[in-house]
């Protein structure tokens, strides 16, 4: 960075300076080179371990507010090592921005919005600090999370590269009045009930010959990430939190995955979910075109802001197979914190992070962003319990938080989900394969990728 900046400065100067060496131009050139040199030096300042820690937060306004609050408090209380925060720079996705930063060696010391599924990819390339080597990390982690979460975030090499920070469990948002209108005081909980409700709700309300009410909606696009919000969440529910990949082997060729495909295939075959792309129009849930949807707690802020008078909604677990017993798991959409290897003083970065994930600041995170900290028995901690009593729409998510899973440890996760998505499209959306064939084909293709 330094070299390229000085080079650019020098090049511009040579263009200016080239013909007549007047004193004025010489002074201007000197100032320009000096300026560029300063900029070049400044670019590397955060990594030299002496001035401050650079912390990138997510770039949504609530998280920026949270980051500013935390950093402000930390800097006020600590004189030893200041923290400078900024939102992750704008890009097509934060993942791409982080990748570009890794390549350009301009990563921050700390990044707090790392999708769990990406961590193994970065960890294998050696760009992340193994946090379990830092003093006090494991102790804090065991206080914060139970063993299943720690198992979930432990990399294939046995190290831990991420701090489980926050989750957004995927649940069923439902229109209370619409379900009541077809005889459901509570929304359907099993596949059979959901299909029954789908049959009853599938209506042409204004008699113009077009269906304008569906029981639910999920995007039919075969993007790999779409499957986290339908197939994967339902699979976790059906399999009591089962894995897709375990120690490099595909383990999703099972009855739970087949049941999910069969259920969704029927939903689409009977037209209970529309195949239209509804994302670019007005909110179809708020407008009453669909009675339910698979969403996270972010929907609360949105629904509260845009709901019309008399619109009543609530949340509950995703539907499960009729024979299901036990708690209903779902995808937690976890975002975690990592320290990059460009950080010259990881121990000091960890000291700041220990403050960031303290119980008090977890509560602040919830208050400011309405996102749930990934902390065990959240609902039983008094101040959190009080908060959820005052915010009943978020309470189901806090209860659900006890039964969420993130992603499996796998560096090729996107490819695996792409393969599942292709088979999902063929089987669920277009009915060209049986669920058994589709899951089997997906499992075989995924194993080839893993091999």
């Amino acid at each position, binding site marked *: 960075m330094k070299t390229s900046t000085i080079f650019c400065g020098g090049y511009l100067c040579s263009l200016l300076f080239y013909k007549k060496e007047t004193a004025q131009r010489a002074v201007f050139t000197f100032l320009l080179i000096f300026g560029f040199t300063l900029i070049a030096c400044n670019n590397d300042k955060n990594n030299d371990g002496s001035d401050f820690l650079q912390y990138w937060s997510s770039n949504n306004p609530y998280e920026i507010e949270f980051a500013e609050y935390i950093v402000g408090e930390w800097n006020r209380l600590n004189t030893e090592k200041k923290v400078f925060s900024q939102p992750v720079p704008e890009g097509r996705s934060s993942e791409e921005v982080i990748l570009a930063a890794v390549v350009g060696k301009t990563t921050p010391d700390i990044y707090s919005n790392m999708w769990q599924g990406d961590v193994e990819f970065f960890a294998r390339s050696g760009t992340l600090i193994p946090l379990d080597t830092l003093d006090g990390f494991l102790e804090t982690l065991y206080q914060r999370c139970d063993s299943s979460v720690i198992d979930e975030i432990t990399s294939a090499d046995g190290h831990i590269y991420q701090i489980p920070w926050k989750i957004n469990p995927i649940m069923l948002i439902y229109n209370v009045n619409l379900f009541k209108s077809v005889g459901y005081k509570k929304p359907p909980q099993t596949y059979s009930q959901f299909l029954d409700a789908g049959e009853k709700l599938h209506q042409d309300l204004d008699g113009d010959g*077009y*269906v304008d009410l569906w029981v639910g909606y999920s995007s039919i*696009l075969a993007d790999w990430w779409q499957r986290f919000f339908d197939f994967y969440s339902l699979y976790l529910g059906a399999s009591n939190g089962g894995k897709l990949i375990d120690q490099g082997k595909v383990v999703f060729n099972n009855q739970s995955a087949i049941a999910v495909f069969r259920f969704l295939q029927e939903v689409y075959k009977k037209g209970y979910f529309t195949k239209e792309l509804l994302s670019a129009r007005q909110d179809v849930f708020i407008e009453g075109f669909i009675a339910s949807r698979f969403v996270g707690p972010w929907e609360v802020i949105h629904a509260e802001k845009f709901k019309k008078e008399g619109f009543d909604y609530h949340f509950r677990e995703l539907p499960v197979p009729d024979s299901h017993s036990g708690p209903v798991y779902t995808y937690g959409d976890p975002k975690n914190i990592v320290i990059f290897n460009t950080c010259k003083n990881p121990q000091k970065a960890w000291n700041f992070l220990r403050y960031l994930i303290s119980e008090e600041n977890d509560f602040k995170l919830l208050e400011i962003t309405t996102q749930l900290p990934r902390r065990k028995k959240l609902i039983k901690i008094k101040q959190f319990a009080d908060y959820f009593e005052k915010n009943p729409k978020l309470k189901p998510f806090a209860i659900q938080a006890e039964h969420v899973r993130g992603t499996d440890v796998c560096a090729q996760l996107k*490819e695996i989900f792409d393969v599942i998505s292709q088979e999902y499209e063929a089987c669920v959306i277009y009915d060209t394969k049986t669920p058994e064939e589709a899951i089997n084909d997906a499992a075989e293709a995924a194993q080839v990728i893993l091999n």
Partner: protein
Amino acid sequence: MKSQKLTPYLMVSPYILHLGFFVLFPIVFSVILMFHRWNIISPMEFVGFQNFVKLFQDRLFFQSILNTLIFLLIHIPLQIVIALFLAEMLNQKIRLRGLLRASYFLPVVISGVVVTIVWSQLYGQDTGLLNRILVNIGLPKVGWLIDPAIAMPSIAIMATWKNVGLYVVLFLVGLQSVPPQYYEAADIDGASHWQKFRYITIPAINPTIFMVVILSTIGGFSLFIEPYIMTSGGPLNSTVSAVLYIYKQAFTYYHMGYAAALGFFFAAIIMLFVFIQRKVIERD
């Protein structure tokens, strides 16, 4: 004297630097990449011709090329016919000619993403405007974007609507350069409107047709935004274009070496295609 010799080099140096950094370097780097496995953040690993072996076994890549060719097969003739028809109309002395010319050009300057999102709504299966019109006149609904046989033609229609204005302008320039004496002579000989069009206009604007074919072929081969936003390559991979597939390999899976190999293979196909087109058009 010395400074006079240096001046031109300094003047062109910004462009040379730009060309070097953003064109030549990527090309050379891609050639190196083709023989490596590289996920951007780990060290490159030399794999010889493995990426090409994989390429020839990759059915989805060849399907993506086929999809692109289907798109071109619909898009190019449709675009030429419509653009030429509109240009011919706008070349007449009609009322509001200036306004109409501007109107046809308007979609060209609108962002491709915006156009794609609007057309996604028009193409909606249950609530889309086009299907509503079809049902109202007693025709069955069409699965514009959800029927594997229809999705690519639907994208081609939309791309034609978006780009036709540009080719109308090119054809207009071509039409206005045809000497009016040719038509006067044909009138004296009693030629019909069609005969004048077939035997005077078409041969006279042949260079424009050639340019339009080449431009829309190259533009068509780079089909990306439309399937990326509208269909993500679906339904059943029927709209995965070659560029979309290469993009996914590079920027979703980070298979940079493989994507470079695909890119080079695809570039060779485009060159071959344009070369054949040129020969055919020149012969005609």
